[in-house]
């Protein structure tokens, strides 16, 4: 059999840290047997080993990869993330990474970027900003309340909004309201902001709002979807999202694997009407 260049590694790593970074979010650091590079927006499929093994691995965006250590940010929402939260340093984690299409690096033609990150949608955009951020980019994070915000991860570049403005630490600021409102008010402070590239990751309502904000202004918009996944590497068709057959405006549609053709999609390619009735409640963020 011919062998293509491997791009993804199936490795068993060891937990080096696993602790809360806010009231609702935990950070997991896994030391892998080798260093694995990634592009911001790519994800890993994680699983426990032994008796705790899940039938399916779970997808998590890669927050950072430093030498052999790969980091994640997650929220406990069900069986799998409960088991993740129980992991102690030294315990094993199966990690298939990196997977999926990233948020592209900017080039000279890329307009300034508006980042909209909600809850556990932070990792890909945090990674992007650290690696590719340019002066003029605007980064906004939306959390439930001040306690939920992982302040230690958010440099002063980040604007923060919260649903309930309680527990804001001294010396930090948070806008009360939606993260899209925060972004717009920042952008429009000095009049018409000019074209932007919107990049969003978070619960589906946030993604819809981001796509609408961009569409209304004719701005390009990339969204990272957190669709349910089975395999994460393109073999099961358990993660599909409807995309327009011939790009923006086309009424024909087809199912795209969100694990291999995404998770980052051009918002204009998505068929938002067909997309995810099952995401109405806001998903896992």
């Amino acid at each position: 059999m011919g062998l293509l260049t491997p791009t993804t590694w199936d490795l068993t790593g060891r937990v080096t840290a696993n602790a809360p970074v806010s009231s609702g979010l935990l950070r997991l650091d896994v030391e892998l047997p080798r260093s694995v590079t990634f592009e911001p927006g790519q994800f890993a499929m994680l699983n426990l080993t032994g008796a705790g093994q899940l039938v399916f691995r779970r997808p998590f965006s890669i927050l950072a990869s430093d030498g052999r250590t790969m980091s994640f940010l997650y929220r406990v929402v069900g069986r799998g993330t409960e088991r993740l939260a129980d992991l102690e340093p030294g315990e094993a984690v199966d990690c298939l990474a990196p997977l999926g299409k990233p948020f592209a690096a900017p080039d000279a033609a890329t307009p300034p970027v508006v980042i909209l990150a909600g809850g556990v949608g932070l990792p890909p955009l945090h990674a992007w900003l650290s690696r590719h951020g340019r002066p003029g980019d605007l980064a906004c994070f939306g959390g439930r309340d001040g306690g939920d915000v992982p302040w230690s991860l958010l440099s002063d570049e980040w604007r923060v909004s919260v649903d309930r403005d309680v527990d804001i630490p001294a010396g930090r600021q948070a806008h009360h309201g939606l993260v899209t409102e925060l972004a717009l008010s920042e952008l429009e402070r000095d009049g018409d902001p000019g074209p932007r590239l919107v990049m969003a990751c978070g619960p589906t309502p946030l993604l819809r709002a981001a796509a609408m904000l961009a569409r209304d202004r004719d701005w390009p918009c990339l969204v990272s979807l957190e669709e349910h996944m089975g395999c994460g590497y393109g073999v099961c068709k358990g993660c599909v999202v409807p995309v327009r057959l011939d790009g923006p405006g086309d009424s024909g549609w087809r199912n795209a694997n969100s694990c291999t053709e995404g998770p980052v999609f051009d918002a204009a390619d998505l068929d938002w009407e067909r997309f995810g009735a099952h995401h109405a409640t806001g998903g896992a963020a």
Partner: protein
Amino acid sequence: MKHPHWWTLDVEAPFTIGPRELPGRVWTASGCFAYGLTGHDIAAQDIDSPYAGIGAVVTKTVTPQPRPGNPMPRLVEMPVGAINSIGLENVGFEAFIAETLPALAELAVPTVVSLAATRPEEFGSMVAELHAAGRDMPTWHGVELNLSCPNVAEGGHDFGSSPETVAACVAAARSHLPDRALIAKLTPNVARVAPLAAAAAEAGCDAIAAINTVVGLDVDLKTGRPVLPRRFGGFSGAGIRPIALAKVDEIVREVGIPVVGIGGIDTAEDALKFFALGCVAIQVGTAQMRDPFAAARIVQDLRRAES
């Protein structure tokens, strides 16, 4: 792994099914490794490739027309397996022949093509076309007729739950497939599977693949409604292994046709249970979705040299 004393097979040695020699006895199951092209860019520290030692990749089932499949969500994880309702999403036969088959040939993936249709003649014409297109493809070893998908059942019964239908589909395919293995994949959602296997054997089938998924349902406690939009799905994984072993045993002992065992095979131990009952080969489904190296590691664990 320590091998039991009765274990003597070499799962990496060639063996024959009907008119065809296949390179090994551990395969990936249909629908759980796509078309077999996706594993090439994945690596691990301690094992060459997800294909190492694999006897065949059974492709995702291909239908005459492309299918968009069922609405999302399509997968429910159970503590002991999963329920899926993919709905046979696939590129369709034309695109498969034009694009997928050449890619499989190019990458030299040992291939068994899974086909589904709703009428015997459709099986016949697909097999004829496939035979023409794949004639010179040394790594194309056979066809698996998916006579059993419960997700696209019509009128409540699985397609292929009557011996007559099974026989008609097998006969139609056989007449166009002189030199490749012809395998019928049967539904487990019947009282007795042996009569179906006997009908397939009678109609000229070389082997039976068993089992496909078992009709199952799970309820979302939050809503009180079934998790899957179509209510029912196909139950697979560890939870169905006892059922798979029972069906396989029924076929092996009552019909005697070669059987390719499928159902809840996660480990080499699980595979051994199917070989113990007389299976000529086994397939790895749900486990392959979790672990790209699942089948390859089973081969590694079954390797005689390590016993």
